[in-house]
């Protein structure tokens, strides 16, 4: 835990960060920018896991191990998504979701 900071404050911070990510995901049309909003949300979740573990039951390490797994998953997801985006750019010369309609019909 952090001296003098309550769990409520950390959870408020992560909630705000998560919903900033939601806002970005809803308003962006560029695929890379959408992926960046996703990273914000994943980060908020990882902080939540560590903070709740540290404040509620510091003896067990479950939340802290899970946050490590979250980082590994986020790395794999980002590498794959960026590969797909680069390939899409090579095929269509754009990564704007409004113009990419290959899978639609």
């Amino acid at each position, binding site marked *: 835990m952090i001296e003098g900071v309550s769990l409520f404050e950390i959870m408020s911070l992560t909630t705000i960060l998560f*919903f900033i990510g939601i806002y970005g995901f*809803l308003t962006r049309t560029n695929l890379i*920018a959408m992926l960046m909003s996703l990273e914000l949300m994943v980060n908020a979740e990882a902080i939540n896991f560590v903070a709740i573990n540290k*404040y509620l039951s510091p003896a067990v390490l479950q939340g*802290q191990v899970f946050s490590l*797994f979250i980082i590994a998953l986020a790395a794999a997801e980002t590498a794959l998504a960026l590969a797909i985006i680069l390939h899409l750019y090579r095929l269509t010369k754009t990564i704007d979701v409004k113009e990419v309609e290959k899978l639609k019909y």
Partner: protein
Amino acid sequence: MEKIMFYILSAIIIIFAVLSVTSRKLYRATIYLLFVLIAVSGLYFMMEYNFMGAVQLSVYAGGIMVLFVYAVMMTDKIGEPMRTISSKRKILPVVIAVGTAALAIFAIYTYQGIGVVNEPTVTTVEQVGNKLLTYKPGGYVLPFEVISILLLAAMIGAIVIAKAKKLVNREKN
């Protein structure tokens, strides 16, 4: 002292996250995201979980950001502002995000049943390593192995997807 540090880090995180989702230049948005990730690693260091802070710095701020920067350089015309949706169509996302965030924070502050342990604990690398590699109940050796296979699969998948056109052409010939 720690309280002030926490508030500074929170301010950095929130301000740069907002800039990162609203900036119209993609490259700048990427660099703002880098600041957010570094401030988050500062939070981990403040919570005395040094290994996670180091992983956040090296994997996120080091590895994933390099991937993002390369992808932006290959796909974006740097300096040209991105296409954005009209401000009329941004009203609903703002309402959704602010409304749900307010609801969630209200729910967090009115919840009573949390028994908080008020003792600072340090998580050492040794503890985390023992937890990850033990076979006894409560150990995480199986998820650890699964994650390593997943990372290998993601690596091969990324290579195959990024090279797919060449493979298709070779099959045609």
